[in-house]
């Protein structure tokens, strides 16, 4: 079974928009040219999901996320779609930035005593002009879209669930960002922040300085990803318009509602 985007009267429709949500993540995953690498998304089409990839996707889900079942996947997807995994990190700081002028922000950054926190504030100050007040929520949304693809490809998600999750994340992304570029930068800044936060000695001034100097572990991959996006004319972010496509607001599928009820019962 193959899921392909239908072609309608309009050249680009909401389904193209949905599938473009995963484009930054796909670009990031195309890190090598081999065909056997577990993480390698080389060759994965931007706007089509082929179930022949199910093995690769399943391996990725198990290896990187420890997902082996339907419930595992839904649990992760829920936190990604609601941006509560990493996307809400520094949420307050991004809001403060939006409410301040650059000079006021500078003063705010200098108030704190903790050099690590001061460094994180500076990180917010330098990334917010690109990400907007949504901060690094694009990191969760892009991963969520990518994993929803993976879930469909390896059969853990139904098409109805796949569409609902995409409609939910698409509406959130549309409300948070102004353009594909801003969304992509949000994803990459989130990735940088995550790369910094996973280091054992992250909360040291030296590591924070590295973060601000762009010397974080994933920087090179991010730079390459940005270049790839710019260089690949097939990347849908170049042609699927950010504005002008009506995005549907789908109802929660019965299967997901049943899962939620089961989870609540289990908790009770």
């Amino acid at each position, binding site marked *: 079974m193959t899921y392909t985007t239908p072609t309608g009267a309009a050249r680009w429709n909401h389904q193209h928009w949905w599938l473009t949500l995963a484009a930054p993540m796909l670009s990031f995953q195309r890190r090598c040219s081999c065909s056997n690498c577990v993480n390698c998304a080389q060759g994965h089409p931007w706007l089509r999901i082929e179930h022949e990839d199910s093995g690769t996707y399943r391996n990725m889900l198990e290896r990187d996320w420890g997902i082996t079942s339907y419930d595992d996947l839904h649990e992760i997807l829920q936190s990604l779609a609601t941006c509560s995994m990493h996307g809400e990190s520094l949420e307050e700081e991004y*809001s*403060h930035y939006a409410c301040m002028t650059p000079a006021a922000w500078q003063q705010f950054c200098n108030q704190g005593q903790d050099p690590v926190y001061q460094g994180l504030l500076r990180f917010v*100050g330098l990334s917010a002009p690109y990400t907007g*007040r949504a901060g690094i929520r694009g990191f969760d949304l892009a991963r969520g879209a990518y994993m929803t693809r993976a879930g469909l490809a390896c059969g853990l998600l139904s098409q109805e669930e796949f569409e609902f999750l995409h409609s939910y994340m698409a509406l959130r992304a549309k409300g948070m960002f102004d353009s594909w570029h801003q969304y992509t930068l949000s994803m990459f800044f989130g990735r940088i922040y995550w790369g910094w936060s996973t280091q054992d000695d992250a909360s040291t001034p030296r590591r924070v300085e590295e*973060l601000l100097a762009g010397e974080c572990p994933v920087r090179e991959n991010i*730079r390459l990803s940005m270049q790839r996006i710019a260089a690949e004319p097939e990347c849908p972010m170049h042609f699927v318009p950010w504005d002008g496509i009506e995005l549907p607001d789908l109802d929660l599928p019965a299967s997901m509602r049943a899962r939620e009820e089961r989870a609540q019962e289990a908790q009770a």
Partner: protein
Amino acid sequence: MSIWQTLGIDATRDESTIRSAYRQQLRDCHPETDPEGFQRLRDAFEQAMAQTAETEQDVAVAAPPEKTPVTEPLYTEQTGTEPAPEPSAPVPSGEGDSSRASQQMQLMQQLLDDPARRLDRRQWQSWLDTCSTLSLAAQSQISHQASVLMLDYRWLPGDLVDWLWQPLDWAMLLRDQAQQSLAEHLDYWRRNHSALPLNWLAQQSHNRQRALLNSFQPLSAALQQGNIGYISFLLHNDSVTSFEHPSQALLLLRCWRALDFFDHDRAMPLLDWLLQQPPGWLSADDLYVMGEFAVRCNNEKLMFHLVDQLLEQQHPLQASQLLYLWYQPRNQVLSCWLGLQMKRHGDARAPMFWHAEQQLYTLDEQSPLALHWLCDLLWQGHSNHIRQAQQLAEISDCHTQLLALQWGLMAGDQAFVTRQLELPFSAPVSLVDHDGWYYVDRLIRLQAAPVSEQLARWHTLLPALGDANAEAPPLNDQQLQALGAVQWQELVIRYHALPEHWQHQLTERGLINPKAVQAMQQTCGITPQLEWEQDASQNTATGAASESASEESAATGDETESEQMPEHATNALLLFAYAALPLYWFVLGDVSADQVSQLLNGAPLEAIDGLWLPLAYLLTSLHLTLRIYMAQPELKKRSRNLLVALGLISATLFSGSGWLALMTVLHQLICYGELPDSGKDSSDKDSSDNKDTKG
């Protein structure tokens, strides 16, 4: 004499009359000049007040207290100019504490009920001054009662709470578990200062004040807390309907900005209104916010107007930030220039900002050299693309003059910068009013302003300066402390030819880190020695510093010599310029004329006249030529340099400076003939110098 006679009034129960009389009499008997009279007056006042309090207590038993009627007018034009009540003199603690505390609370109630006075800090200060004269027990009672009373006026701005917070020691309530929530509320409240000017608010009626504060204060608080959701909620509920003061417009603009809502039709009337305010009313931050609206609403004319205002008010950072915002999506080259202006004027964005920005630019081998240079500076902080001024002449760009000026500033070559500033400005075709290039030019010139001022002073000291290098005496403590560690470090990085023994001293004192200096010198691209060390046949003597050297020669009337000077000597002058600059800087850095004299081998300033100056140049040239070349292993192959040296000696002799000059030159030859050996065996600094010269 009765108490009423002492107070100068008839017997009365009216507290305000007694206070007024007391204040009146107090002017004539100060406690320091007339202690007995003061004591008499004080006693009379206290007795009169005690009688009033007793009467009130009697009334209180009969009926519950009524709120003191507000006698002040609700609206007055004179708010703020009304004289504040004078504080009472100290009151000993005792029986009347409770009643005095009650009186103060009544006064507080009156203040809070008076719309004209409650927003006047001086009124509160006066009230607090009176409170401070009471016993500690009474003050404690007032502190508690005032904190509770304030809760009836929650709509008032936090300024009032802030004024009372410390004097009434409300912070102490935070430590009391029973009062903690109250104290936390007060603490939160006091941080939410009024969004509208208090003196303007004080002129409004009670109802109007309340309405204004109810609509704008929550908005201001939400903005202050960065609570975007609440801002959105308030604005969607149309809590803000009318505008009477420009501060309201500013607040609304800031809220829209936080919501990323830049609506041309709604913003422009507010911006127009704000622009009508008198000059200086808008702060740099206000102008920046307005400018952001101009940019986002695509209003170029307004954006330039705001940039002009920012520059007039000496805010180049905000001006460059606005211009960058405008040009970033429009003109790659200009935005690079403006990005650099932001950095140079103090924008503290971390390197990663520019890494991200890098993605927005397309830079390839075909891109102009100037753009490569600019991008390097933005993304890496340094560039090797333009290492000497000679390259500037090869760049055929309509903005070469800007480039040269900026390059000189980045290279720290003050003489070159001055020369550029003095050149008649040839504006390129596109460099017209209200064009981005016009502002780049203005911003670069703002950077150069301190250099111009410093060099104007330098010219006045020029005749007093001689060879600043090896003969300079060691720095004394005062001189070492004249500059901070950062300044010394910067100085040494910029000027390699600073006397070595100075550098040793600085290293010993921990003022410079030789390794860091060396690393910076290698990355900054300001390495005249490297140019010097290149094959002399290339004759690269047209560099920035050589121009500065010839300029110095011209300034000392030695123009013909400098023009005819062999290339090595010119290069030596180049080095002299670098050697002399730090001394000038050092001298200009709060060092007195006496200290200058000490630096110049103890010779008084008057003794160094115009005749000696050309000689000093020649000696320095020779000194540096020999020093550099003798430090090289291939000295013998370069014997022609000795011929150059002899030529210089001859020139010195023929210039009429006499035997002294010859002796000095011979002394220099003898001294520096030993340099190669000592250089190899001595300190790391020497070896690093050798390394520098070898490139």
